[in-house]
Every structure is written in C-alpha cells, then in structure tokens.
C-alpha cells in the first residue's frame, strides 16, 4: 500500500494538539506547574540546550548508545552468519540464545553490577549485550530466510564458497541484518534510559528522573522531548537510510518494528 499522504498533512494534528494545549493553559485549565504551556516550554528547552546542560546529558547517552552498538556489531554479525549457515552450531547455542533473547536485558543489570561493580563499564556491557543479542538473532534469521531458489540458482551458475557468500547469501541477508541493527539500537536506547533512571548520575535518563523527583515540570518535559526526538531519529532516520542503501529490499509496515 503506497498511499502517501501529502507531507504537510502529517503536521496538522500535532499542531492542533499544541494549540489546544496552549489555549487550555491560557484559560487556566492546565496549571503551568504541572503542565507547562508550549510557549513557556519552547524557550525553556532552548535555554537548557544553549546553557549546555542538556547537551552534556544527550552526549553522554549518545556515547553509551554508540559505544555499545559498535562493540556489538561485528561479533553479532559474524556469529549470526555462522549460526545461520551451520545447523549444529545453531542447535548447540539455541538454549542460550533463546533465553537471552527472551529475558529483558535490564534484568541482567544486577548480575553485571555484581561482577563488574557499579560503574560505566557495567552500563556499557549491559547495553552491548542488548544490541548483540538482537543483531545476532536478526542476522541468523536473515540467513535462514534466504530464498532456496536464489541459493540454488547461484550454485548452478557456479558460485561456491566465498563467491556464493559474497554475491548471493550476504546481499540477501543484508536487509534483515540492517533491521536487526535498527531494532537493536531502539531496544538499546530503552535499556540505556532505563539504566540511567536506576543507576546513573548523568545522561538523559538521569536528568529525566531528577526532574521528576524535584517536581520541575519544565525540565521533565524538556528531557522527555529530547529523548523522544532521539527515538524518532533512530526509528525513522535509519529506516530512510536503509531504503536508500538497499533499494532491493521489501518495504512493509510490519518491518518497521520487527
């Protein structure tokens, strides 16, 4: 279904929400201490960004997210490819992978804190694990989902070994690998924010938590907006990049979150 809406239409209902919000605040229905009106929130957010405080927390969160993604990427893709190609390896690691996939990675935080101590390494390790598991499973699924017919055709044309992998298997699995990266990043962002809420002094999650605990509605909303913008960028930005890099892949709405 390629029914595209005109791009300006997408903005209409969010704008209406903002205007109604502002009007309700002006009419005194929403108290500014609880729900700050957009006209106050905008300047406050800009001031927080200009003052550098929010930038610092954003950079800390981005640093954690990026580092754990980079650490996980190469091992996860390599392991996922091997598991996809070797049946015995897949069966041998299945129990471990299944349980790791099903456990919310935040639940591993106490165990990691116990072993590594309460520090930055713990946070990075737990995040890396989140990305790693998701990307491994997606990569493996991508290899397993490669069309048998395509594979047979490649073999019949004489592609074997490295050439079969490089020109047939890998490009076919690439869309799934990419989807795994995107979901991995989104899940890791949830994890990083969750860990920052529980056990960190810095980062957007910590800033958000402090704002809530000190009843600063403006800081709370500002932090929430920045975190939301980060989530939106990861989800839609990476989807665009993926479509541009791999024009051969299928686009479906379900693949947005898978």
């Amino acid at each position, binding site marked *: 279904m390629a029914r595209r809406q005109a791009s300006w239409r997408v903005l209409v209902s*969010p704008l209406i929400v903002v205007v109604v919000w502002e009007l309700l605040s002006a009419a005194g229905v929403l108290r500014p201490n609880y729900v700050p009106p957009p006209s106050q929130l905008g300047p406050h957010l800009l001031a927080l960004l200009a003052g550098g405080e929010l930038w610092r927390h954003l950079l800390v969160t981005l640093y954690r997210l990026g580092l754990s993604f980079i650490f996980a990427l190469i091992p996860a893709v390599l392991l996922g490819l091997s598991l996809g190609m070797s049946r015995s390896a897949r*069966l041998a690691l299945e129990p471990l992978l*299944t349980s790791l996939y099903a456990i919310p990675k935040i*639940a591993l935080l106490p165990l990691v804190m116990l*072993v590594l101590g309460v520090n930055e390494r713990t946070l990075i390790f737990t995040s890396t694990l989140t990305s790693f598991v998701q990307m491994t499973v997606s990569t493996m699924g991508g290899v397993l*989902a490669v069309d048998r017919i395509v594979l047979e055709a490649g073999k019949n044309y004489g592609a074997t070994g490295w050439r079969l992998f490089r020109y047939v298997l890998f490009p076919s699995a690439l869309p*799934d690998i990419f989807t795994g990266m995107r979901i991995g990043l989104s899940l890791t962002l949830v994890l990083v924010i969750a860990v920052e809420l529980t056990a960190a002094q810095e980062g957007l999650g910590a800033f958000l938590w402090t704002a809530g605990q000190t009843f600063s509605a403006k800081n709370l909303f500002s932090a929430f907006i920045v*975190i939301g913008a980060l989530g939106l960028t990861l989800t839609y930005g990476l989807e665009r990049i993926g479509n541009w890099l791999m024009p051969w892949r299928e686009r479906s709405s*379900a693949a947005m979150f898978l």
Partner: protein
Amino acid sequence: MPSRATRLFSRELTIPLATSLIALAAWEVLVHAGFLRAAFFPPPTNIASTLLGLAAGGELWLHAGTTLGRLIVSFLMALIPGTALGLAMGWWIGMRLTADPLVKLLFPIPSIAFFPVVIFYLGLSEWGLLLTAAITPFLLIAVQSASAVESLERTLLEAVLNYGARGLRLFLRVILPAALPRLFIGYRLALGVGFIVTVAVEMVAGKHGLGGFLWHSWQILRIEEMYVGLMLIGLLGILVTYGLEALADRLMPWQVDLLRLKGQR
C-alpha cells in the same frame, strides 16, 4: 519419510539439551575447582536448592503472580483501545489523517521514558506502573491494527459489499477474520515490549513483583535469590515470547508463515 523426521526431531532435541547440561555441569565443576567465584556465580545446585526453598514459601509466588497480573492487566489496557483505534484508523480516512501522525510521533519514544512523566502525575501507584507498561504497547497495536485493515484485499471487500454485508456483520464476519493474523503480530510485539517495561519499572520502583524481588535480592546481596529471580523472569519471558506464537499457530494454522517474526527463526 517418517524415519528421517524422527531423526531430525531427535537431533533437534538432543543437541540443545546436551549443550545446556554440559554448560551447567561445567559451571558446577569450575566453581568447585575454584575457577569461578562462588560469590558471583553460585553453583547451579545451590541455586536449585534456593529455588526449592523459596518455592515452598509463598513469597516468591506472590512476586511472580504480581508481575504476571500486571503484565496481563496492562496488556488488556493496551489491547482493547489500541485495536479499536487502529481498526478505526484503517477504516476511516478522516480518523487516519487525525490520529496517525500522533501515534507515529509517539510510538518510537523509548517506552521507559514515559515512566517518570506518568509518576509525576499519578505518583508511585499501581496505576502509574500499569499505565507506563501500557502506553507503548497501545501505540504499537494501533499502528499494526491500522495497517492490518489497510492491507485487506480490495477485491474481497468489494465482493462482500456487493453481497450486502454491512455494519457489524461486515466487521465480525469479514474484516476481523481477514485482519486477525496481522493483528496478532501487533499483539506479540506489544506483549514483548510490555514485559520489558513491566520488569524495568518494577526494578526502578516496585517493592513487589519479580523485578522488585530481583533488585532487592541484589541490594542485600542474596546472590542465589537473585539468580532465582532472573530465572523466573527468563521463564516468563520465554512464555511471553514464544507462547503467543504457539497460540496463534493453533488458532490460525493457515497463517503460520506470516506470524513468524522475521529474524527469529
């Protein structure tokens, strides 16, 4: 070829079983040999006896029941309005133009970030926990239900409209069955997300529930109990991740392929 099928089946069962048992045995041996610190990695036999001890008392079941209850209630809080909104968005163009941008704007926001905002208004109450765990699943279900209706086949709809199906009959006999497999995809994803958020929120806030139990046993350094908590969370996670898939297989055997999430098999 039954003989080949049995062989495959047995291999699919024996290899994972063997590796798990070997890993557990190696863990046990390495601890006793002093290579793994028992303070960090208590031997599996100790964990098992702790589990049995806790299972005899009622407290552990209370925690597990609390988490399961929260998961179910928050899932229903997401499922009913989410499906209704999504189906409406898929059916009426006006609804889509109004609600779709808002839903698509909100659902990529990291689910756990809603928690401080929700408790800012509701306090650390049970409703705060449930609402937090319901928000992202609700949005996910709405998006997925809308796309389920949009992807219905036009010819099918034209045909049944020509045959005079209208209103509730049209909805219950045609739209719902045709959209069900895709709705299920949304439900599965939503349940998974809901579980992650429930556990995370319990760890941050709850004294009760498996997440709270896990966090508490870490804080007082009862390591065996921590592993028990982790194990139960894992079991519940497996149930959530694979249970709904099995259910869907039974309910809609004709739609097995669509329901397999890409990248899971």
